[in-house]
């Protein structure tokens, strides 16, 4: 239902500046607005120096490096309650974390995904002394879960299909859910595996708990953007692709200067802006990808910074040459 005809008076009140593209808006504003989840070890934390760090933060930095060549970012802390709508309504330009690329999300909510930056899966954290070894052991268990993700539905689907019952305890955020699990309020805590591992890595009684091998869902995480700006989506997609491609091509933070000067590989030259005008076509400068690798590093660099200290292996997130799922789109 739309208003049939707006009075002229009202038309006057609407600012005449038509919504420019997201990139132009970001440029004009002078910084990127990146939605992050506060305190999610491995993904987004505040380190001892009081700076934000983590895999999601690197993702924000990747984009800022591509656009500005430096980290001009405003981090907007979001909760699962507010994340998707904030993105829809323009409060943030991109939301890298916690968003599983699923059919309904992609189709219905007015949002789009720009690639997959982490292949994850939903799994369960249980106490070793609980006797639970497989998901099938959990008929009748109380399970803590965090709102605002596809996890709730995955679990209902999975248990429903197998005729199993459970009591859901739905928390507004992951930390409170884990805190309640730790207080033995529930038998299991379910979440995407990497994020759980990150959060419990420093638990004093870490050894009394285990994350089950079994995964009940695929959770491909991708940066979320608004649906109405395909050029912005391209930019986000290719910035991230540069990170993967750099790893495939053997370019990393340490050797990027040298590669730019000496590499004879045509794709490296194109990516780093030695040849061609790939950056300009995205509306960026020529050395956009060079800036990304120089400032943030390739996928391996980012992984080593954020996840290796937590004991996470690359697994599915290795490049395809190493048996993983990440495969860069070619710079041609």
């Amino acid at each position: 239902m739309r208003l049939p005809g707006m009075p002229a008076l009202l038309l006057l009140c609407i600012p005449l500046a038509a919504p420019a593209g997201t990139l132009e808006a970001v440029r004009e504003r002078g910084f990127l607005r990146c939605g992050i989840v506060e305190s999610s070890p491995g993904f987004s934390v505040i380190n001892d120096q009081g700076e934000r760090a983590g895999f999601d933060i690197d993702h924000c930095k990747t984009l800022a490096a591509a656009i500005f060549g430096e980290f001009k970012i405003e981090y907007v802390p979001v909760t699962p309650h507010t994340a998707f709508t904030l993105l829809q309504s323009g409060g943030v330009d991109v939301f890298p974390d916690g968003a599983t690329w699923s059919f309904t999300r992609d189709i219905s909510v007015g949002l789009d995904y720009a690639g997959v930056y982490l292949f994850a899966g939903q799994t369960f954290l249980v106490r070793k002394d609980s006797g639970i070894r497989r998901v099938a052991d959990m008929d009748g268990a109380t399970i803590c879960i965090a709102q605002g993700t596809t996890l709730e539905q995955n679990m209902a689907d999975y248990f429903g299909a197998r005729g199993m019952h459970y009591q859901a305890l739905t928390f507004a955020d992951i930390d409170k859910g884990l805190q309640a699990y730790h207080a033995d309020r529930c038998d299991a805590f379910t979440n995407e595996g990497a994020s759980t591992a990150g959060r419990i890595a420093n638990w004093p009684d870490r050894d009394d708990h285990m994350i089950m091998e079994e995964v009940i869902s695929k959770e491909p995480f991708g940066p979320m953007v608004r649906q109405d700006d395909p050029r912005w989506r391209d930019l986000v997609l290719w910035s991230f692709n540069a990170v993967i491609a750099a790893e495939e091509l053997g370019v990393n933070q340490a050797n990027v200067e040298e590669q730019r000067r000496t590499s004879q590989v045509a794709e490296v030259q194109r990516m780093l802006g030695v040849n061609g005008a790939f950056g300009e076509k995205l509306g960026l400068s020529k050395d956009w990808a060079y800036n990304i690798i120089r400032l943030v590093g390739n996928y391996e660099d980012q992984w080593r910074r954020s996840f290796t200290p937590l004991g996470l292996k690359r697994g599915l997130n290795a490049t395809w040459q190493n048996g993983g799922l990440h495969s860069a789109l070619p710079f041609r």
Partner: protein
Amino acid sequence: MNMSRRLLIYQLLLVAAVAALACLLFSVTQENLARLGVDSNFDFLFRRAGFEIGQSLIPFSADDSILRAFVVALLNTLVLAMAAIVCASMLGLALGLARLSGNWLLSRMALTYVEIFRNVPALLQIFFWYFVVLRTLPRSAHSTVLWDALVLNNRGLFLPGPADNAGAFVMAAAMLLAIGIAWAVGHWASLRRYQTGRSFPVLSVTLSILGGVPLLAAWGTGMQWEFPQAGRFGYGGGIVLLPEFLALVCGLSMYNATYISEIVRSSFSALPRGQLEAAESLGLSRQVAVRLVLLPQAMRIMIPPLTTVYLNLFKSTSLAAAIAYPEVTSVFVGTVNNLVGQPVTIMALTLVIYAFVSLCIALCLNWYQRRLALRGT
């Protein structure tokens, strides 16, 4: 004349401005939603929910509609509000009377309680109950068990309850019946007192009706009781009061009781001293005087401020969203909004529901206030 016409024009201008603003907001919102490809209708209410809710008074599974999930959430809110209001009122009354008591120690202690708990935010108190006190409860394997019927552990308080839905229905019906009978008895007793002056032990009779009728009904219909049973994952069966629920009831009632106690104290102190003296000089004992002479008059003063406290309490049930009790805010603004992605309709629905229930509470108490009001003076 000129003046009043000018005022009329001002008002019409005001209404026009308000309407224009509303139209503007509406059209901008529509435009934004259309641009973002977000639907705004209520079709989603009839979609399959696809998520589970931890506590539901009516049967609910992931296959039911979102509308049903909403009813479940609303019932959870109402149960929580009701329980907290009852507990807060009783605690508040006790504290208020303790404040008024001639016993120095007792009234000082009540004052200390009030000053401590009134000045600490309700949400903090709820967190304290949930994240601190919950932790000290025993694990399921070491539950505190009383007569094999009451079980307390960190998964909640387990009570015996009807075994099936038919039994639950019988109990609910019997409870309603008991309330009806109790009300009738109270009415009859007060009539008789007016006419004959003979008193009737209303309180004890009412309590025994409220307890007795449901038990009698359960026994009469041969209802099966279900006792808490230890299962693979802790206790199950019977009625379960979740720790979230207990934490919220404790937090909200202990916080709001401080306000109620202040209301009780000030409305009793507002009564003229002569009332008590007159009652005592008529030979009424102190207890009878308080119950029959002071309380009815104090009630009249109490109801308007009590309405405010009850409304505040009802509104603060939304704090449950901070811990995992599935009430309206948590289920709708949290789960359903993320599932469906239609913020405008969902938020509007949530606001309207809260406003509607608030209105009902206010109307009920206003009605009660009018009933208590002095007639014919």
